[in-house]
Structure formats: structure tokens, C-alpha cells
């Protein structure tokens, strides 16, 4: 499951910012996030809807639409910044280097083109004309890798079930053997049994290609099962990054803790759970730590200073004052011992009680 971390990361995101310019002002959909993805690694993003996950991956593909704009930062793919590429160079790198498995496979296939033509489109555009027979063979092979019969090539999308469409999208995404596959909720519209099967197919293909993968999951259980490392996003910020096991066992950021403990499971019955309050309105977000209005441990200091990314272990980072400036909580604790107690419990290495397996 854990992949040995090689020296050179495949993808390095540095201080990426994406704003949407509305009439009322900028919405900071992605605000100053940095992370890296290593070769062959599966990186999962979790967070409530609207926290900037999809915007982040669209930025990596440079497909942000007006009124959105990439305001700054670097997206280094094998060391070179794709934000400096010309439009034509970027077009050429799409799909051949970074491919996408879209959110709603239901509507992601062109309804008036046969499956074969849609896959062929990607191949021919990037690899030049290929003899028809060879092309057909190649497409047949691709469909086979996602457990579809070759007849599917001649079908139109409306003739396929949801799971089959999603498999077609996977076949298409791997057609050019890209280095990075981005999967945006690849299974959220499917039935549970199908979800699992499609996910297994996806992982199989990704491992065969030795590609890296970014996975956005509506279903955090799925992310826990599949990802090597996980990033937690909240209101456009990356608040925690850690190995999957570490994150789900010992989440450090109060938001991650709440998010993970709120998940229903068939391993235990919980009472309560969930995060109080609402994600912030990004036109007028709270100051500094964006989570403080909903945070059980918040003190005045959280509103005054932005929390820096604190490195807990080599591969585990979280942006919370609890971790990087505990003295603030100590001084606050002098007036209110309760906060200190809660703080220590939360910052401690022990998993929150709500998360133990039986």
C-alpha cells in the first residue's frame, strides 16, 4: 500500500491560488495550497463539497473557466511548470501526460459519437493518424483492460449502463498511458456493488501503467481503502496531508478529526457526530484560521494569526495552531483550564475515541 518515496516527485504544487472573480469580489476557491505527488502514488482529497477539490484538479489541467483564474503559484510536472506552457503546449500535454476521469461519467461522453470514435479522437489527436485496423485493435485492447467486450466500441453512450460508461471513461483516460490520472469522484453516481468493481478496475489499470493518481472521493470510505496519502481541504485551504493510515488513525487537525469521526460505519454505532455550523461563505471568509468558528478548540489567537503548516512527521503535516504554537493555548489555558485539556487530548497522538475499530 505504501509506496517507497522516490527522490523526485511527479507533481509539485506550490502556493497555488485560484480565485473566482464575482461581481461581489474574489472568491478564493483555492488559496495558497502546496503539496506533492510521488510517482506511482495514489493521492486522495477529502473535504466537504465546495472546499476547492475540483477547482484544484481543474487548475492542474489548466481548465479553469472564467470568471475563475489561476492567480499564482506553480504546478511543476516533473520539475517544469505547466503554468508557463503556451496554450498549444498545454493542449498537447493534456491527456498524453495528465488525463481525467470525470465526475459524471453519465454526461461526460458525447451522446452522438460512438465509443470508438471518442477514444480514437484522443489517440489520433496526440499520436497522429493510425491505420483503422490498428486503431480498432488498440481500442479493443483498452476496453478489455476495463472488462468490457470489444462490441462496446461500436455503441453509443446511451446504450451503456452507468458502470459501463465509467469503464469507458477509464479506458479512455489510460489510452495514452499518462503519467498522472486525475479521478474526480469516479464512482459517485454508481450503485455500491458497481462502485467497488469499477474502482478495482481503475486501480488495476493505474498500477499497470505505473501512473500516479489523484482521487477525489465523495465517499471517504473509498478514499481510505484506495489512497496512499490523503489531503484534507477546507474552504480552499489544504489543512492536513498525511499517509492514509496516519490520517484516518490519528488525524491532527480538528477539522479532519471531526470529518473522519462523522463518517457512518457498520463497525460501530455512533451517537452524535457531524460538524456543527456551516462551511464559510468564501466571499467573506473568517479571518486567518478559516475553521475557527466551527472548531471546538478555537481560542482568540486563531483569529489573529494564520496557522502555518506544521510538520508532525516526514509525511504528516497539518495547519493548526494547536500543533505549531501550543504555547498560545497554554496561555489561554491559564484562564480556562478546560481548553487546555481539550487541546492536549486533540493534539495527542491517540486516536479520537470516536474512531476506534472494534
Amino acid at each position, binding site marked *: 500500500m505504501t509506496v517507497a518515496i522516490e527522490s523526485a516527485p511527479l507533481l509539485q504544487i506550490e502556493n497555488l491560488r485560484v480565485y473566482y472573480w464575482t461581481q461581489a469580489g474574489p472568491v478564493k476557491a483555492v488559496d495558497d495550497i502546496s503539496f506533492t505527488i510521488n510517482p506511482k502514488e495514489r493521492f486522495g482529497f477529502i473535504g466537504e463539497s465546495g472546499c476547492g477539490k475540483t477547482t484544484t484538479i481543474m487548475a492542474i489541467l489548466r*481548465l479553469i473557466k472564467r470568471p475563475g483564474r489561476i492567480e499564482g503559484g506553480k504546478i511543476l510536472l516533473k520539475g517544469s511548470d505547466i503554468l508557463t506552457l503556451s496554450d498549444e503546449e498545454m493542449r498537447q500535454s493534456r491527456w498524453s501526460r495528465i488525463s481525467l476521469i470525470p465526475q459524471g461519467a453519465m454526461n*461526460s461522453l*458525447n*451522446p*452522438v459519437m460512438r465509443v470508438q470514435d471518442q477514444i480514437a479522437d*484522443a489517440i489520433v*489527436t496526440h499520436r497522429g493518424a493510425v491505420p483503422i485496423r490498428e486503431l480498432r485493435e488498440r481500442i479493443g485492447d483498452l476496453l478489455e483492460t476495463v472488462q468490457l467486450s470489444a462490441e462496446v466500441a461500436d455503441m453509443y453512450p446511451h446504450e451503456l449502463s452507468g458502470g459501463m460508461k465509467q469503464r469507458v*471513461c477509464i479506458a479512455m483516460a489510460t489510452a495514452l498511458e499518462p503519467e498522472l490520472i486525475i479521478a474526480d469522484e469516479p464512482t459517485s453516481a454508481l450503485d455500491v456493488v458497481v462502485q467497488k468493481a469499477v474502482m478495482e478496475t481503475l486501480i488495476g489499470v493505474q498500477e499497470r501503467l505505473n501512473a500516479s493518481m489523484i482521487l477525489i472521493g465523495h465517499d471517504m470510505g473509498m478514499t481510505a481503502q484506495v489512497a496512499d496519502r490523503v489531503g484534507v481541504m477546507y474552504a480552499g485551504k489544504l489543512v492536513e496531508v498525511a499517509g492514509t493510515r496516519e490520517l484516518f488513525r490519528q488525524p491532527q487537525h480538528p477539522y479532519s478529526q471531526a470529518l473522519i469521526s462523522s463518517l457512518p460505519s457498520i463497525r460501530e454505532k455512533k451517537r452524535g457526530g457531524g460538524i456543527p455550523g456551516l462551511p464559510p461563505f468564501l466571499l467573506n471568509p473568517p479571518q486567518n484560521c478559516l475553521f475557527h468558528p466551527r472548531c471546538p478548540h478555537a481560542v482568540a489567537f486563531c483569529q489573529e494569526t494564520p496557522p502555518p503548516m506544521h510538520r508532525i512527521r516526514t509525511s504528516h503535516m497539518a495547519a493548526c495552531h494547536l500543533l505549531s504554537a501550543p504555547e498560545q493555548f497554554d496561555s489561554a489555558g491559564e484562564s480556562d483550564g478546560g481548553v487546555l485539556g481539550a487541546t492536549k487530548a486533540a493534539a495527542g497522538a491517540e486516536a479520537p475515541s470516536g474512531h476506534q475499530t472494534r
Partner: protein
Amino acid sequence: MSLTYILRRLGIFFLILWVASTLNFVIPRLAPGDPIAALIGEMEEQGATVENSAELINLFRERFGLDDPLPIQYLKYMAALARFDLGYSIRFFPATVSQIVAAALPYTIGLLTATSLITFVLGILAGALLVWHSTPQFGRAVITFFMMLAPIPYYLLAIIFVSVLAFSLGWFPYSGVVSVGRLAEEGFDFGYIVDLVYHSLLPAFSIIIAGVGGWVLGMRGMMVTVLGEDYLTLAEAKGLKDRRIFLRYAMRNAILPQFTALAITLGYVVSGATIVELIFSYPGMGLRLFEAINSNDFPVIQGITFFLVVSIAVAILIIDLIYPWLDPRITYSRK
């Protein structure tokens, strides 16, 4: 394409014909008094104005079966229509209505087919380009200008064209289909065709320019919707070339509802075009219609209407039969 689909389309084809011809039957009989009886009476009195009027009157009596009960009259009328027998022109008796229509129909059909196709293609392309991101600003301005012509009726544009381009500037002939003195018998040579096209240009322009805007508008609306679809995002992510995304992914899908709309606007186009013909004295159905109105030539009025409805119904049938070929989903589901 399933058989039920074809049968259903044929059903609609006949329904259109039936409604239109029934209206044609009912309308004269709604008139206060009986205009046909009155007309016959008038003809009997005037006697001399129309040649062989006694014969005509007899034919009329028989044809309209004025002494029969209404349902019988209706059946006789429908039976005659089925044989394309529309009776005789009053004004040009003994010429039949079918002969008169046959002389005028090619001009109208020719003009309309050409202009409708050109209008449709131009409008669709322009509408799609209007919202496409890489269309230059200048192109958008031109298209927007044509879009703004959408509300102007054909006939007003025709009037302006006649007055400015034909009359004041003298660039185009303002009436007729060929130059005076040039007769078809002289031969159907190249010069004749050039002359024919030259004379058709202004009427055609009026129809095209006044019609493009509507298509631009419809296509723009649909394109905006299609551009927001997931499959467009995926096409872009696939790194396809701009032109391919535009043609195969965006336009190809946005065009489908326009195609359906084409069937529905035909009636409107034909109505408008008849008046344009009148303004340009173009010897098609519109001009014949006007002449018939002025001489109370009821059989010709009805005949022209009937033939135009048939033409439209045929066009719609063709469009409907082509449609499933454009939209693979159609055989399975269509409202």
C-alpha cells in the same frame, strides 16, 4: 430507425395535410351567406366577363355540390384533393388550378429551398461562433449585427432593398425573374441561368438576411447550454484541437434542436416569402396569390395554399426522416 417512428412521422404528415385542407373546406362555408353561390350569381349576371362562363358555372355547381349535404360535400372535396384536382381558375378559365400552380411552383420551391438552406447553415454557424471562445471580436460584432436583424420581417427588408438597392442604386432588377425580352424558348443556356439567378438575388437576400438572425439566436442559446455540458469539459481535457471540439462536440450537439425547429419555422418562412415575391414581382406562388386575391379567384387561392402546405409537409417529413440519422438516441426515445 424503427418502423413505428416512420409510421408516426407519416401520420403527422397526413395530419398536417388533413388539418390544412379541412380548414380550407370549412372557411368558405363559415362566411356569411355563401360566397361561392354569390360568386356564381355574380358570374351569371355579368356573363360576359369570363369566357365560357356558362360552362364554368356548371362545373362549379357540380364541383362544390352545393345541393349536397355538408358531409357529402366534404367527402367530394377530399376525394378531389387526393387527385390533386383543385378545379379551374375563374380568371384564366379553362386553365386548371393545378396548371397555374405548376407554372409558379418551381420558382417558389427553388427560391425557398436555396434560401432556407443558406439561411439555416449561415445562422447555425454564426450562432455557434458567437459564443465560441476563440471567435475574434470583429466576427462577433458582425454576427451580433445580423442577430439584431432577426426581428425585422422579410417584407420590410424587401421594401427597403427594392427602394435602395434596386431603385435608387440600380444595382439589381426590381421585378421579374428574367430580363424583359428574354424568353425561355430562346434556350435554357448559361446566360439564361445567370439572368435568372441575378433576378433572384434580391428576393433571396431579403429572405436570408431577415432569417439568419433567428437561427443565430436559437443556436446561441443551445450552444451556451452545450458548452456547459460535462462532455465538453472532457473533450478539452482530452487535449483535442479547438476546431474539433467546436465541430464534433459542441456544434454537433447544439444543432439537433435547431433541426427540429427548422420544421416548425418553415410555415413562417413560406408565409414571409410569398410577400417577398409579391414585392419583387417574382413569378412564384406569392405573386399568383396576390393576383388571385385581387380577382376573387377563390380556387386559385385555395389551390396555392394547399400546394404550399403539401410542400411544407413533405419538407417536414424529410427533416423528420433525416433526424434519427443525426441523433442516435432518437430510435429509443423521443417525446
